[in-house]
């Protein structure tokens, strides 16, 4: 069983959901983020948040995957002040929806004053509502941006144990772990981590507070990032206990602090969900072996 704690499924297809379920992903977290281009109306942002707490959650359930999300104003769009002010007004209404496991992904992009303002305001909201935080660390000037993100969390009195710092690399991981934060790694081709590098990180740092995710979205990315990393790690001799923690248990422990994500959600789903919102996972029923399917899907000629 795997959890992908960072996946923008609103941009993905049903083929992806099928492949993820077949590969053993039982749950995923969809962080609120931008959608590849900036929104220009508060209303479109509101409908986006509405989609990830509602429709996308339902859609994932049809494939036997439990869908959770995080709610937040991302750093890129924080730079549009008119939009940002409007979105901030709506966030408290979304942060308590079913399956919201954190405020996120928030943090810095270009590390502007506006990004800083709304990052801090959302840390305060997370404190008020008792929710964990998912931090997006910047692509550019990453090391400094990561350090600064943690400084600001500490300044606002957040417990590092309730904060996941995501998109780490070899340069940032040591400090994040040393300061007691959760360290997320996004297995995303070209711009973030590769899974061979990830295996080296697991060998060097072990699995304590390390979380692997795919961050798959509308760009060239891989929704099987977590199971593929697990398989590569297994083949490379990483102990299974470490793989289990990094690809499943740590994400559950970190985001489970919200009270919204429990192993029972997929192992013993409540009847009310099975009637309406969640199709039982065929792997958990013992229907198939989990597998990382590397061959193209839709192989058959017939479309019924």
């Amino acid at each position, binding site marked *: 069983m795997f959890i992908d704690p960072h996946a923008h499924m609103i941009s993905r297809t049903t083929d992806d959901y099928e492949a993820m379920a077949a590969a053993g992903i039982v749950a995923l977290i969809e962080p609120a983020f931008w959608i590849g281009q900036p929104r220009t109306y508060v209303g479109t942002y*509101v*409908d986006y*948040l*509405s989609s990830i*707490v*509602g*429709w996308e*959650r*339902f859609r994932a359930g049809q494939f036997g995957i439990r869908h959770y999300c995080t709610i937040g104003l991302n750093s890129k769009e924080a730079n549009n002040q008119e939009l940002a002010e409007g979105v901030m007004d*709506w966030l*408290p*209404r*979304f*942060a*308590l*929806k*079913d*399956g919201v496991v954190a405020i996120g992904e928030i943090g810095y992009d270009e590390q502007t004053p506006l990004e800083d303002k709304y990052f801090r305001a959302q840390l305060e909201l997370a404190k008020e509502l008792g929710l964990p935080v998912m931090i997006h660390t910047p692509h550019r000037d990453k090391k400094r941006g990561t350090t600064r993100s943690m400084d600001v969390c500490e300044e606002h009195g957040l417990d590092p144990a309730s904060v996941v710092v995501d998109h780490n690399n070899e340069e940032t991981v040591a400090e994040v772990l040393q300061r007691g934060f959760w360290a997320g790694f996004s297995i995303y081709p070209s711009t973030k981590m590769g899974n061979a590098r990830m295996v080296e990180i697991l060998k060097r740092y072990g699995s304590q507070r390390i979380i692997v995710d795919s961050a798959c979205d509308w760009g060239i990315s891989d929704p099987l990032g977590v199971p593929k990393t697990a398989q590569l790690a297994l083949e490379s001799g990483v102990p299974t206990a470490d793989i289990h923690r990094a690809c499943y248990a740590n994400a559950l422990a970190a985001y489970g602090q919200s*009270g*919204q994500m429990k192993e029972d959600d997929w192992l013993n789903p*409540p*009847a*009310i969900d099975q*009637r*309406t*919102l969640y199709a039982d996972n065929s792997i958990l029923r013992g229907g198939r072996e989990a597998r990382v399917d590397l061959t193209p899907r839709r192989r058959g000629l017939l479309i019924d």
Partner: protein
Amino acid sequence: MPTPVELLRSWVLNQAGDAATWARQQLDALARGAPRRDLYIFLGLAPRRLGKADLILSEADCAAAEAARSGWRVTGWSIDGAARVLALLVHGDNQTFAERFKDLRRTADAGELVALYRGLPLYPDPGSLAFEAGEGLRSNMRAVFEAVAHDSPYPREQFDEHRWNHMVLKALFVGSRLSPIQGLDQRANPELARILREYAHERWAAGRPVPPELWRCVGPFATDELAMADLRRALGGSLPEARAAALALSASPAPAARALLAARPELAAINAGHLTWETFEKAA
């Protein structure tokens, strides 16, 4: 006689356990006109504090619901859903009910949508919620669609014929059941019978099964030879299809229907009252 609000309140508080005090205080504050933000937070916290278990209701409770609001079915209501509907009913400010409903529906998660729509028969000024009910029917989430369509007197009371017909057709289309739709027989109409027969033709042409319940709304209007041909075909299908077609024929005023039925083994069961749409549903 208790009102729906009184019933919901007693059911929720009785089943709230440790959260009963919290729920009582919040509901009282909302009734006194607490700010809208408090309503949002109560709606968000309801499942977190009260859980999502089904309401545990006795036959007397169900009878009380029926007495308080004709057609109101509370089976399958959850405690958080009941609390949310209750909050909506007791909270008042300068918004109309329809405005508040729209505001909440726009940002609702699936559980909230189900609760909001299950409450339809209980809300004031029901005609003002026509657009909102239509939005619920348009949902691609089956549970949300069924929260409007099933076990509720609202559709039969409020929907015009066009909306009614498309609700029935969509129920079949999404694999939902017709029998929980209240007023199914009373609101059957020739246009719906035409739409359903064409739907059956589409299914046959595609080599897909035709849901047998479909014939229930066709029978009373099956008068011409083409309709008879459809029912004859259904009679030759699976056991449920044959039973459904026989029931439909028994509702048809056409002599040809009686002639078709006369040769069928289902006729005796229908005449004896052993085969009805209710027993058909139970067997399915």
